[in-house]
């Protein structure tokens, strides 16, 4: 088995291009990175090719866009098993859990921005190796 085949794919969804660049720098050594700048692009990318992991920012074009994307992915049987790391602000997590309640769809991990590179790497490795 060559290294190329073993490389897992991660989809990075965030509207800040600089942030995306920074995270890509951390992860590119071991994973193939695809990017999307908003919810629509993210869903299109997933439809084209399922990633092995999705790193998702909460607020892009509107306040809870990240949650909407996560919810859509979890409702679809084809994509519901793709692990998701949600990047949020602490208060967003708390508040939106209160607001969203039963339509709340948990992600696998929540991380607070700004995210420390090695912590992120550790979480990714824990989820998809």
């Amino acid at each position, binding site marked *: 088995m060559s290294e190329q085949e073993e490389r897992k794919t991660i989809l990075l969804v965030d*509207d*800040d*291009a*600089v*942030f995306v*660049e*920074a*995270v890509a*720098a*951390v992860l590119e050594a071991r994973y193939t990175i695809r990017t999307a*700048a*908003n919810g629509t692009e993210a869903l299109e990318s997933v439809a084209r090719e399922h990633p092995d992991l999705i790193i998702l920012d909460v*607020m892009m*074009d509107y*306040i809870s866009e990240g949650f909407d994307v996560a919810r859509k992915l979890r409702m679809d049987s084809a994509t519901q098993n793709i692990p998701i790391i949600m990047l949020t*602000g602490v*208060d*967003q997590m708390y*508040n939106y859990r209160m607001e969203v309640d039963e339509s709340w769809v948990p992600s696998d991990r929540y991380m607070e*921005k*700004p*995210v*420390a*590179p*090695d912590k992120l790497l550790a979480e990714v490795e824990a989820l998809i190796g």
Partner: protein
Amino acid sequence: MSQPRFAYIFAPALYGRLQWFGRLRWFAAGGLAAASLLGPYFGITAVWPSLFIVACVIALYNVLLWQLLRLRKQHVHPFVNLRYIAVGQTAIDLAALMVAVHFTGGIQSPLLPFFAFHMTVGTLMITARTMYILAGASCLGAAAMYLLESRSILQFHPINPGESIEPLSAALSMITLVIALFGIVYLANSVTRSFKERNIELYRTTDQLRERSVELQRALTEISEIEKRKSHYMRISAHQLRSPLGTIKTSLQVLAEGYADPATERGHKLLSGAVERVDTLLETVNDLLELAKIREGILKAPWSRDVMLNQVLADLFDSLGTHADDRNIELVPDFVGVAILDWGVPPDLVHAFENLIYNAIKYSNPGGKVTVQLRIESEAAVIRFIDRGIGISEEYVDQVLLEFVRAPNAKQHAAEGTGLGLAIAKEVIEAHGGRIAVASVAGEGSTFTVTLPLHHVPKQHEPHAKPEKSDA
């Protein structure tokens, strides 16, 4: 709700009174019936069956009255009808008493004092004027009865059989009756007048209180809406500040921890990206500060007189000309007339118009045209900022003037932008007494219409205002 003419007693109170008298009436009917049954045993023959019939009639119309009261309770305007009922039942009671008096000796009847009872009771429910009329009618009725009986046109029914009409005592009784009835109405009215007036006041006050509490309710709802909007605004502001900070920190950490080498292209991208985000942060902070200041009424300069908008716009054309050229956008003035504001703050107007023109240029496609149209329409300057750029979709048109709202197509067309430019422009224009409106079709362009009244006077310069304090 305007005060009804006879609002001297509350409808519920009048209703209660009518019910109470309704109950008393049973006693009256009962008493008359008893008198009619017992009278003959005492040699008083005239009372049977006459008083008994009167008693039955009274009982009958009392039943009707109760039915009427029950119906009125469900009626939409209970008060007016209750008043008619009150007058009606007093008049009928007096008529019934008149008949009973006739059969018990007319002007020499022992039942005469009951007229006084009705006068008192009536004055408590009805206006004095109506009671005087009823008193007069009762006296006339009594006088007519005496005259008819004395001429034998009507039969005389004395209590003591064989008793005859004595003109002198009859006349005296008549005089006493008149004095008594009118006197009682007068006395009862003056005693109850203050009570009635207080009722009117109470009625008015209750009405006012009701209005006030409705207003209060409305104000409280407004305040809680404002509070909600404020905290929503603060949450978004905090996010807008935290987001670039997060990117800066992460970028620098990536470099510091060796995930990227500053000497490489990627490293360089991250460093300059972090610097860009710092700029974004500074811009956002500055814009937030400016928005807050304008909202507090702190403008960039003291108010000036006679601000010429044509000049303001022309100067902007000069300063933004190169910027427009860089983007291959044609900036076109279209001014008809000279618009001079009585009062204005030029630096703030410059900033507002600059934001609007800058936006128009930003969201235009290369080779496009931005027109700034100035007209004077009914004592106001109307400035239209017209572009043929990417436009705004229907769902976002109402929101673009709010803080931090950037439509998705705007973000795609130009990633940078604090989302505050239009909010600031709106505040400035409203501080000048004006309005701003947006019309747009996605993909075809937008028109922002600014209306500034020429003669708006700012609060602190109003003629009767307190002496002005200088703006910080």
